[in-house]
């Protein structure tokens, strides 16, 4: 069953094309991750899917409801975790959930019946009457997630759900998101954390400059776009070593600052050579999603 269907979606601001003809298909129960550097068009894509801005052209169906034409009806079955927390600072934890439930026309009884389970889910079981200002960043994020579930949505959008959180808080959010997928919810998240994407998502797409430049499972992306082994070489003479030796032994060599990244199917020859070079340090590891991401979107800063 299609939970999100996007066709030939385009959006530009003046001459700046932010979303440049993308297609998306999400089926029930999958966790889809949209990756991309800052300014790639991820958040705009999300806003388009929610009906918060109008596309120049293209079609969007969310849970088989056309957006933006019937965006309100679609949003009644969606949960949203925005990039920045926008909890109500004047309310307690419980009041935040109660007031948000009203926006969905839920009765007070219905909302109050759902709150204990949601607070447990967010690990805030005993904090119901606390003021929002008393919560840590991780707690606020979990409460925002709980708030997004108040209407028992079929599809949940998360915009960079763990940005700014410490590792413990991130792991807890990931665990909760996996629970939601196990319950059959569909998740659409944007992120620029590769470990997050690798752990959570069963399908990914990489977006850059408004276009989808690659897609597939995390494993497929690594297999398709990069050699399986990486040797990172550090040291003052790393660059000259790369020119003389590295580039001959590796299929691809990239220099970033004082580090040389060598991508190879088999690293034995490289390691043998590096063993004779006490002036160079190196790390040998399997290729990961971050290598793919940098390969596809380049190493330049995107501010």
């Amino acid at each position: 069953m299609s939970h999100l269907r996007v066709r030939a979606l385009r959006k530009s601001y003046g001459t700046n094309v932010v979303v440049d003809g993308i297609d998306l298909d999400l089926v029930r129960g999958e966790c889809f991750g949209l990756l991309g550097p800052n300014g790639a068009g991820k958040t705009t894509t999300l806003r388009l899917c929610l009906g918060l801005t109008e596309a120049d052209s293209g079609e969007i169906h969310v849970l088989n409801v056309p957006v933006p034409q019937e965006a309100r009806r679609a949003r009644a079955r969606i949960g949203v975790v925005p990039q920045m927390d926008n909890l109500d600072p004047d309310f307690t934890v419980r009041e935040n959930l109660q007031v948000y439930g009203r926006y969905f026309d839920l009765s007070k009884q219905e909302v109050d019946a759902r709150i204990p389970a949601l607070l447990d889910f967010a690990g805030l079981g005993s904090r119901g009457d606390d003021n929002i200002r008393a919560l840590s960043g991780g707690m606020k994020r979990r409460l925002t997630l709980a708030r997004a579930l108040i209407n028992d949505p079929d599809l949940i959008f998360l915009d960079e759900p763990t940005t700014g959180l410490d590792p413990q808080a991130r792991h807890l959010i990931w665990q909760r998101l996996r629970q939601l997928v196990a319950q059959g919810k569909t998740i659409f998240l944007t992120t620029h954390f590769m470990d997050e994407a690798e752990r959570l998502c069963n399908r990914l797409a990489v977006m850059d400059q408004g276009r989808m430049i690659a897609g597939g499972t995390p494993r497929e992306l690594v297999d398709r776009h990069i050699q399986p082994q990486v040797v990172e070489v550090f040291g003052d003479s790393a660059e000259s070593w790369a020119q003389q030796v590295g580039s001959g032994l590796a299929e691809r060599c990239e220099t970033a600052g004082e580090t040389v990244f060598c991508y190879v199917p088999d690293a034995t020859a490289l390691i043998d050579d590096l063993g004779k070079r006490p002036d160079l340090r190196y790390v040998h590891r399997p290729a990961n999603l971050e290598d793919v991401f940098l390969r596809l979107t380049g190493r330049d800063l995107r501010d």
Partner: protein
Amino acid sequence: MAGHWAPPDFSLRCIHVWRRNLLVWKKLAIASMIGNLADPMLYMLGFGYGLGSMMPEAFGTSYLAFLAAGTVCSSTMMSASFEAMYSGFSRMHMQKTWEAIMNAPLSLDDVVLGETLWAASKSLLSGLAVLMVAAILGLCASSLTLWVIPVIFLTGLAFGGLGLIMTALSPSYDFFVYYMTLVITPMMLMSGVFFPAEQLPMALQIATALLPLSHSIELVRPLMNGTLPAQWSLHLFTLALYAIIGFYVALALTRRRLLK
């Protein structure tokens, strides 16, 4: 997007926006009510007794009664403007409360309508507070005074809409100072709160006749005095026009700001 000026598309869910603001207000109700009363009381009693003792029968009634009617209106204007601008800007820009609401099945149109109704409701409380003090002082002559209540609400709608226009245009809180100094304060001084507008030079009289506050006062003052306002339908019509046009412009400008 050409759709900024599209006709409004409301749902009944706008009432949830109003209720959200009510819940916040309840937490601060006492402080808020004291604030609503303190400022207008200082003006009314200070000027009323101070100036009033020097001109006992200048305007057909006591100066205190004259001023009380003006203060009901100016206090309503202030309250609606402050709510729509400072509090509205906090909810729109600082706390991103509107954004959170729009992720639920409400449109921006619902939010702006809910906010306008809320600003009018809050200003109704301010206007009523002053009206009650006037009644206690024996300045409300007849049961016609009850008609002041819907006029206050309509005045609140007009100034709520105008305030939300400023909010939609504002880059920061500082921006509202211009509107307060250049629009609201002159309006309060010229529209007949403290002295009859007829005392002004003709050009200024014509200018004030176009401003919403003078129409509100032209309705409230006779009603509190126990007479039916002359040309009441014209004044009601003008206030309603301000309310409707103000709301529509505020909606279009807010759409332009937030729905890009």
